[in-house]
């Protein structure tokens, strides 16, 4: 198979860069007229791009542990958490120098440590494995052309609406009474940072132990053989291929995602994609005349919580979520991987719909998804991110048992 025969199978270069150019053009325009919207658009593009290039799937990072015993993706996620935790701790120490007073850093993802977080995590973990992707995973797969993910998105919106209808019950019985446990409050920033890093490092090593027991022999994947680089042009082409054509290692995307999260937090608030979807859900079901009662206690949260009355359409979170889809779309077209993919087995549509609904409900009551309630919550140094992660693990275990039967 020579390079020339391959080249006939992919679109010309000029076509492959069109979506990326369009994404950047939108960034330029918004940078001029609405720089804050532009910032969140850039965050979304970056997330979608990095995650698509590495296929950094949070659902798979949990599921693979049980399906084939592999821990590679989980280690990438843990590495991202180590990076984000370190930078978050430094930023928080600057914002609130004395954490012992009980004052929380504004907008961090430290939420009440209640049963809602564990139950939400379990449901989310189960749903994401059934649907084949978490909430952000559903968004970037839509960008790659997966029709099943569109079905899952419909399920997520339905689940979020169901969560809104039961929100007040969860508020009264779990969220309003549960304590917010923020580690720096008792341990100080340095103590909290060291504790969390030690825990993450332990888990990192634990995945190797798990893999040795469960996955069988690990076959090392060698570095990619490179053609000889002679001219400047050769070197540029190699760089281009590394960035835009070849798959990135999962760890590279996880670190990129962590850096985007730190940037977002330094700018205003940590990343989270669920709050916006809740606005979509509330709008969609509002058209059908379905309005939940007033949601109690919403002023106690920021970020990924459900919304009461959806704000205008063109919000920061809208730019982030749509940017995520668009970034993944641009990345997949650039690598010649975009395709409209239709599941052929009817059961897959059912899996996506049911998985999406269960996951959406879980995200609604746990105040976020794998990004907001986990990837942003653990670096916020609250315990809620850990409880949600435990739920994800349990849910993924059950989910991987179920999907095995549907092969």
């Amino acid at each position, binding site marked *: 198979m020579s390079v020339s025969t*391959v080249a006939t199978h992919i679109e010309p270069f000029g076509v492959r860069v069109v979506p990326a150019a369009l994404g950047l053009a939108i960034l330029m325009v918004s940078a001029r007229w609405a720089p804050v919207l532009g910032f969140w658009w850039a965050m979304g593009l970056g997330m979608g791009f990095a995650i698509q290039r590495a296929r950094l799937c949070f659902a798979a990072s949990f599921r693979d542990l049980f399906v084939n015993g592999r821990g590679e993706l989980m280690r990438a996620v843990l590495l991202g958490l180590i990076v984000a935790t370190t930078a978050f701790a430094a930023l928080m120490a600057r914002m609130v120098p004395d954490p012992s007073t009980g004052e929380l850093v504004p907008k961090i993802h430290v939420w009440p440590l209640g049963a809602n977080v564990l139950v939400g995590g379990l449901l989310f973990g189960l749903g994401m494995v059934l649907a084949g992707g978490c909430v952000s995973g559903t968004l970037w797969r839509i960008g790659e052309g997966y029709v099943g993910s569109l079905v899952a998105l419909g399920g997520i919106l339905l689940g979020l609406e169901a969560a809104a209808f039961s929100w007040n019950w969860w508020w009264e019985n779990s969220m309003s009474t549960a304590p917010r446990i923020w580690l720096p409050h008792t341990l100080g920033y340095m103590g909290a940072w060291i504790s969390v890093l030690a825990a993450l490092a332990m888990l990192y090593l634990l995945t190797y132990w798990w893999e040795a027991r469960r996955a069988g022999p690990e076959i*090392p994947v060698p570095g990619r053989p490179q053609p000889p680089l002679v001219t400047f042009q050769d070197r540029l082409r190699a760089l281009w291929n590394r960035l835009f054509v070849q798959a990135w290692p999962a760890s590279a995307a996880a670190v990129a995602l962590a850096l985007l999260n730190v940037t977002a937090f330094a700018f205003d608030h940590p990343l989270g994609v669920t709050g916006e979807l809740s606005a979509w859900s509330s709008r969609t079901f509002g058209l059908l005349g379905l309005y939940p009662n007033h949601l109690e206690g919403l002023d106690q949260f920021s970020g990924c919580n459900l919304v009461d009355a959806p704000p205008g359409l063109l919000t920061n979170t809208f730019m982030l979520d749509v940017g995520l889809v668009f970034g993944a779309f641009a990345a997949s077209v650039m690598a010649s991987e975009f395709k409209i993919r239709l*599941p052929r087995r009817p059961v897959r549509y059912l899996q996506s719909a049911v998985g999406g609904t269960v996951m959406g409900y879980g995200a609604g009551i746990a105040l976020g998804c794998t990004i907001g309630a986990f990837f942003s919550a653990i670096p916020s140094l609250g315990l809620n991110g850990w409880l949600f992660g435990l739920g994800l693990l349990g849910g993924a275990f059950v989910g991987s048992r179920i999907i095995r039967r549907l092969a």
Partner: protein
Amino acid sequence: MELDVRGEICPYPMMRTVNALEKLPPSEALEVLTDHPPALTTIPWEASKRGYAVDVEKVRSGEWKLTLRKAQGPLDPLAVMQEISQKVDMGG
């Protein structure tokens, strides 16, 4: 033997390939058609663990054909993965 797993997402391309390998007569090759990029790493990994050499070819944008053959003699997994990563690169 042919296995069309287009439209399937993780972990099904890998799972169904493993199931098909269990039914595959030793002299035959298994051709797997997939449009799920992550399957380009999950299938070769499971296949080489079971002693199958893997060849990959890009069919069109977002679609690949993997050919799995029982390796003659002991398989050098390193060489298999090297070959695959090179070919996947070429096809994007």
